C-alpha cells in the first residue's frame, strides 16, 4: 500500500469536519497497511489550517496561491492531478460534498482512475480496498471493489466516520504545483447567502420536521399544531422546500441547516443521508414513518412505525392528556 492522500476541505478559512473524518479513517487504513497519510491543502493563506492538520497526517502538503482563493474545480483539478501523478497514492479521499462532487468524477476521468462515490465504509482488501455504499435511498448496502489500478478514488459521505483526536505529528511541506489561472470558461462570480426568514430553526430546542409523507400542503397544519404543542418550530426535508410549502431556511440537511435541538421529531421523513446529516446530533430523536425500513429509524432514539395521519392526531391527544 502506498500513501493515502486526503484532500482537505475548508470554507471561510475553517477546515470542515469531513476533512478530519477522512483523515481519521485514512490513518486507520494506512496503519493496517503499513503506509502513511498525506493531507493535501489547497487555498490562499493556508498556514494556520495546515498547522491544524499536522495532528492528523504524516505529511501536510500545501499549495498556497491567490488563484485558489475561491474553490473552482477547474483550477483545483489540474493541481490535484499533478500531486497524484507525482506521489502515486494507493487511494485518494475526497469529501462527498458540493465541493468534492464537482471535482472527483472529472478528476477520475483525467487520471483514468476508478471512483466510488459517497462511501460509508472502507476496508483494506488484500493489497487494495473495498468500500461500502448505500443505494435505493439508504435501503440497501452495496459492497464495491476496484479493478486493479495504481490509484483509486473515493468520495466520502459526511459524518460517515467519526472525528477522533489527532495523534500524529506531521510535517508541513509546500508542494510546488503549477497553479493555473482561473480559466475563462469557468469563472467564480460570488457567493449568495441563503435568504433568512423569520424563524431560525437552529436556535430552537424543539423541532418537528416534516417530509414527503405529509402528502399535501393542507396537511401541514397537523405538524404545525404538534410543533406548537411541544413549544417548537417546524422544519422540513428537501422535498417540502422543492414543492414551495416552506421556505429554504426551514430545511434541515446537507443543503439546508444543521441543527442540534434537544428534541427532533421527524414526521413522514424517510431519512436519506442528506437529511440525516443535518440532524443526527440532536439529543433525542423521534421518528414517525410508515416504512419500517426507513433509514430514519437507524438514527432515531424512538420510533413509531405507522400512518402519520393516525399517529400525529393521537399523539396530540395523548400529550394533552399527559399534561393534565
Amino acid at each position: 500500500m502506498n500513501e493515502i492522500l486526503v484532500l482537505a476541505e475548508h470554507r471561510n478559512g475553517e477546515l470542515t469536519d469531513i476533512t478530519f473524518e477522512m483523515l481519521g479513517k485514512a490513518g486507520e487504513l494506512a496503519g493496517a497497511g503499513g503506509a502513511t497519510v498525506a493531507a493535501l491543502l489547497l487555498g490562499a493563506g493556508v498556514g494556520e489550517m495546515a498547522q491544524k492538520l499536522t495532528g492528523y497526517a504524516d505529511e501536510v502538503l500545501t499549495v498556497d496561491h491567490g488563484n485558489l482563493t475561491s474553490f473552482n474545480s477547474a483550477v483545483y483539478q489540474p493541481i490535484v492531478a499533478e500531486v497524484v501523478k507525482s506521489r502515486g497514492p494507493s487511494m485518494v479521499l475526497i469529501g462527498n460534498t458540493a465541493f468534492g462532487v464537482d471535482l472527483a468524477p472529472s478528476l477520475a476521468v483525467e487520471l483514468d482512475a476508478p471512483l466510488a462515490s459517497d462511501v460509508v465504509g472502507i476496508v483494506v482488501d488484500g493489497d487494495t480496498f473495498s468500500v461500502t455504499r448505500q443505494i435505493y435511498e439508504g435501503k440497501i448496502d452495496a459492497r464495491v471493489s476496484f479493478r486493479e489500478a495504481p490509484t483509486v478514488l473515493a468520495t466520502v459521505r459526511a459524518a460517515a466516520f467519526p472525528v477522533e483526536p489527532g495523534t500524529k505529528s506531521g510535517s508541513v511541506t509546500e508542494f510546488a504545483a503549477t497553479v493555473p489561472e482561473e480559466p475563462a470558461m469557468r469563472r467564480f462570480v460570488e457567493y449568495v447567502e441563503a435568504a433568512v426568514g423569520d424563524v431560525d430553526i437552529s436556535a430552537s430546542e424543539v423541532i418537528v420536521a416534516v417530509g414527503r409523507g405529509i402528502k399535501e400542503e393542507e396537511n401541514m397544519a397537523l405538524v404545525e399544531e404538534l410543533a406548537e404543542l411541544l413549544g417548537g418550530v417546524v422544519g422540513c426535508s428537501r422535498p417540502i422546500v422543492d414543492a414551495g410549502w416552506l421556505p429554504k431556511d426551514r430545511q434541515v440537511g446537507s443543503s439546508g441547516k444543521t441543527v442540534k435541538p434537544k428534541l427532533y421529531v421527524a414526521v413522514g421523513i424517510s431519512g436519506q443521508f442528506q437529511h440525516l446529516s443535518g440532524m443526527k446530533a440532536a439529543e433525542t430523536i423521534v421518528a414517525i414513518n410508515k416504512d419500517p425500513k426507513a433509514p430514519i429509524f437507524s438514527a432515531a432514539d424512538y420510533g413509531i412505525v405507522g400512518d402519520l395521519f393516525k399517529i400525529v392526531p393521537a399523539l396530540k391527544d395523548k400529550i394533552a392528556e399527559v399534561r393534565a
Partner: protein
Amino acid sequence: MNIVVCVKQVPETAEAELKIAAGGKSIVEEGLPLQINEPDNYALEEALLITEDHDGDVTVLTLGHESSEEVLRMSMAKGAATAIRVADPVFDGGDGIATARALAAALEGVEYDLVLTGCMASDDGNTQVGVALAEVLGIPHATYVTQVEVGDGEVTVGRELEGGLIEKLKISLPCVLGIQTGINEPRYASIMGIAKASKREISQLASGDMGLSADAVGEAGSGTVLEELTFPPAGEGAELLEGTPPEASGKLAEILKEKGFV
C-alpha cells in the same frame, strides 16, 4: 440553443419493501413501477423552459434497456424533438464513469450548446455521470445547479452548497450542468401525448455504431465492481413503540413527559 438532456429510467422504491435478488447483486424489480430519475425530470423541464425562451431543440439521451424508451417517449411528449437510446447489452453493469464514456460517444456528431442531466441518480445514489461526461467531452461543468441563466455564449449558474449557500459561476458554452431538484416545477405528459410520441422514431445506438470496443464499456469497462448487496444491519437504532396509534402515541407522550418536553 440546442440542448441535450441525459436521462435515466429508475425503479420507484420510496414506499416499497425491497428484496435482494438471487445472486445478491441486484434487487427484485418486479412490482416496482419504473419512472424517470427525479433530478433528470427537473433537468428535462429546465431544458424545455430554456428552449421556450431561446429558440432551439431538446434531444433526450439515455443508456438503458428497451423499457427506458418509455422515459424517452414521455420526454418527447413534453417537447423533446429527438430521442436517442444507447441500446446494447454490452453496456450493462457500467459504473458512472463507464456510462459517461458511452454517453459521450453517443453524442459524437450531435450538435449542442448545453448538456443537462440530473445531479444524482435515485437508484444507485451516484453523482458522477454529468461531471465525468463533461471531462470526457472536454467541456466545463458544474453540478448541484439550482439556477440557470442563459447569456451570450455562456451561462450564469447558481450551485447549491451546504447550508443553502449559493455559489455563482459563469461558464462558457457548451458545458454540462448537473441539475438539482426544486429548480423548477416539471410539467405533465398526458397519455395521449405519450401515445402520439410513440409513433416517432427513437434512434438506437449499439457499441459498434459508436466506435467503442466491448472492454471499454459496461461491466468490463468499469473501474468499480459491485460485489454484493445486503440490507443495512438492523437492531441498532430506534426503540420502536408498539401498539395501535393511541397506544404507541401514549407511550411516546409518557417518554416525552419523562424527558421534560411536555
